[in-house]
């Protein structure tokens, strides 16, 4: 599903450049649930941003579902993001003045899906995360866990090939974190490929594979025995 070869990325910080990714080789097969770990500054978010086509690598190759992702203009990048990727952010990034339902329907709006169909689909995914009753609520009327579930529903709505989660539990307490992870595991069990960036070992243990990043290189890539979140809830 994801094929990365010798990926380099550096940032220009005033006069000196900061080499963040120093040759990443990495691949993810369909249906995997991968966590990317590392201390802050290890380059894990940069990697995720490149995977999410929000940022572009300096060199190296990136294939998503067999398609080369290189030199995309913003229009094509937007289209690919919409079609292939679902984003889950640490700070949820819901649009504050739109209801939960409208938030979930947003990727479909940019796909050009008709309003009626769009809202039906959005409601379907909202009920999938257990928030059908909260459809008409604004984000600030929801708890943190609920917000993240709305965000997950939104990421799912466009039926992407890969879900990218950047510290999805970073802003949540332990109990809520586990609830969210339970949901993510459930989605993975249905066959969706998911990448999670985290620095919490317990969250990483709930995935099927842990990739450790340090100073811009992968130092460890191991398959682990998945801990089911439902046991902790």
């Amino acid at each position, binding site marked *: 599903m994801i094929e990365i070869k010798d990926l380099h990325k550096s940032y220009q910080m005033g006069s000196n450049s900061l080499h963040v990714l120093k040759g990443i080789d990495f691949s993810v097969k369909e249906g995997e649930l991968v966590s990317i770990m590392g201390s802050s500054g290890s380059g894990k978010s940069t990697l995720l*941003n490149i995977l*999410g086509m*929000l*940022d572009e690598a300096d060199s190296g190759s990136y294939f998503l579902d067999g398609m080369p992702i290189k030199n995309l203009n*913003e*229009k094509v990048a*937007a*289209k690919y*993001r*919409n*079609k292939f990727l679902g*984003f889950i*952010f640490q700070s949820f*990034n*819901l*649009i*504050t*003045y*739109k209801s939960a339902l409208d938030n979930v329907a*947003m*990727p479909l*709006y*940019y*796909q050009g899906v008709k*309003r009626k169909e769009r809202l039906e689909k959005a409601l379907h995914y909202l009920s999938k995360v257990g928030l059908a009753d909260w459809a008409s609520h604004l984000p600030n009327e929801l708890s943190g866990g609920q917000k993240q579930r709305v965000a997950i529903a*939104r990421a799912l709505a*466009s039926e992407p090939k890969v879900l990218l989660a950047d510290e999805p539990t970073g802003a949540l307490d332990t109990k809520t974190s586990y609830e969210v992870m339970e949901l993510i595991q459930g989605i993975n069990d249905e066959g969706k490929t998911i990448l999670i960036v985290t620095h919490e070992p317990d969250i990483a243990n709930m995935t099927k594979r842990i990739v450790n990043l340090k100073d811009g290189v992968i130092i460890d890539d191991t398959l682990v025995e998945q801990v089911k979140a439902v046991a902790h809830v």
Partner: protein
Amino acid sequence: MFNRDRWDEILQALTANWFRTVLTAFGVFWGIFILVILLAAGKGLENGVKQGFGDIATNTMFMWTQTVSKPYKGLPKGRRYNFKISDVQSIRDQVPGLLYISPRNQLGGFRGSNNVTRGLNTGAFNVYGDYPEIIKQDPINITSGRFVNYGDIESKRKVAVIGGGVVKELFTDGEDPIGEYIKIQGVNFMVIGTYSKKSNNGDGEESQKEIYVPFTAFSQAFNYGEVVGWMAITANDDQSITNLKGDVMDVVKTNHSIHPEDNRAVGNFDLYEEFKKINGLFIALQGVAYFVGTLILLSGIIGISNIMLIVVKERTKEIGIRRALGASPWAIRGQILLESIFLTIISGMAGIAVSTGIIFAINKMLEGAPADNDSMFANPSVDLTVVFVALFILITSGLLAGLIPAQVAIKTKPIDALRTE
């Protein structure tokens, strides 16, 4: 463009901060308001001044004789001459494109002595010997009876059409002048009609004190023979009298053995040229109105552009989220542009509505004022063209106002936009 979601978003964005939206809109409102009011005021002034022309045919020149200023064919300079009635026919034959040629002879005039009597009443009036066409060149309003016609001309009937001022001085109140006789320089004329005339450059009183009689009867009664004192010549609508003027004068010069380069022998007044000058003035005035109005509008537009920049700044993160979710640059740009155009058009329309409302009120007030006053201001109005021009300016300016903010909105990379708080 006309999908519900987009408009939902626009309304959401604009109503999020009502006070700011209204303040912003006011700039454009004010600009278009001033523009429309200025154009209407210019039009009002134009209408007022053109009303001063009355209904006179503007494609007209008047022509009279002066002394010859160059010797020619053995004739000395300083010689006086008169138009002859035969000149009318030769002008008609030799200069195509003329609509009316009205010769006229005149008695009385400025500070003339008493020349008309009826019983014990006397008065000093201008008496004109005219052809029937004159009424089409310098219209008067026949209030009773009729004007001179060709029957009168051919039979040399001694009949007269008199103005309201003449009736007042020669007749007692309530007396019907039609069929009565008045004595002009000792010759009896029967009154066949009365008229009133629209005020004309402030000589309203004077213009009601005129007497029109058939040209032929005038010539015979007052011994004018073949002489013509004055001519009013109107060109066809598709011709300009200014262009034909030279031809007409050449005919006259040939007929009267005047040097072809003698520019003083034939006196003339070209109404069309005067009219064009005044027209030019109003076109200039309109230009000034557009200029000033558009500049004021421009400051309103800059206001909108400014506020859209702030809105875009405030929504940087939201725009980042949208782009992460797959909004193309054009979707974002379109959104900002539509917001800006929408705001501009709504406030502009309000400006047009209020200003036309005020114009309507002014019109009502002017209608209430006495009709015959010599005001230089009448019926201020804007036509539909102006509204469409204003609409065009609004859409263009809305687009311009949104362009820079829209560009700013997509300039930030989605990844940076997402990081801003």
